[in-house]
């Protein structure tokens, strides 16, 4: 149940957003990802762990190496995050319109 919130926390961090951007075009190992940042290696590992836990990244074993893959499907769900909020307002405004249509016919 906390998954959704975790996704938001995950993308709220600028380093994690940079990692997602980096992996959007290629799959890399933890070492190769860390090489792109000034941040300490354990910090990058922690970021990767968080992104993996909320399914924005997937791990895949290739030989001895673990590669991180970007999970586009999960990212799409996050991109749709405005939809429940929009639906809430749509519903509210539909009610407003229906109520006022009655006042219109009363004229």
């Amino acid at each position, binding site marked *: 149940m906390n998954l959704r919130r975790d996704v938001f926390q995950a993308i709220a961090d600028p380093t994690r957003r940079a990692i997602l951007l980096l992996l959007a075009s290629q799959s890399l190992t933890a070492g190769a990802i860390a090489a792109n940042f000034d941040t300490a290696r354990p910090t990058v590992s922690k970021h990767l762990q968080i992104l993996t836990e909320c399914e924005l990244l997937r791990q895949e074993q290739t030989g001895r190496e673990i590669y991180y893959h970007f999970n586009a499907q999960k990212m799409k769900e996050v991109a749709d995050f405005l939809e*429940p909020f*929009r639906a809430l307002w749509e519903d509210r405004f539909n009610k407003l*319109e229906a109520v006022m249509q009655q006042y219109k016919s009363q004229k």
Partner: protein
Amino acid sequence: MEQKTQIQAAEGRQDLIITREFDLPVALLYRAYTEAEIVAQWMGTKVLQLENRQHGGYAFETSDPQGHVLFKAHGTIHDVIPHRLIVRTFEMVQAPIGPQLEFLEFESLDEERSRLTLHIIYRSEAHRAEELKLPFAYGINMAHDRLQEILTTLK
């Protein structure tokens, strides 16, 4: 189907713009926001107070049939130009969003149609994020309540 209600929430900002076109003359759309009895109908809440004038205030409250307060919101009216503009604050009591500043612009498109542009400014980007997450949280709570209900009947 075309979406009548549009939300603009640019990244890195602390505001939101909600727009909607109505099959209503602008005068009726404006009434929907300024007459307590009508607000109560479409908002589905009790309107305790609605003084539509400069420095006026408003308060909404919704209770369940047992009398527990489910929703409580209030604000102050800063400016009113009939059929054109309402500037007000809004705050949902006991929500993590805090007070927000709202500009409600009413626009006539033709005799029978009008547009509402609701520009909401939050205290910070983080406060806006809380607002956007709220429908999710609500949905999750609802699902949780359903689950609870089912589990209770199974007992």
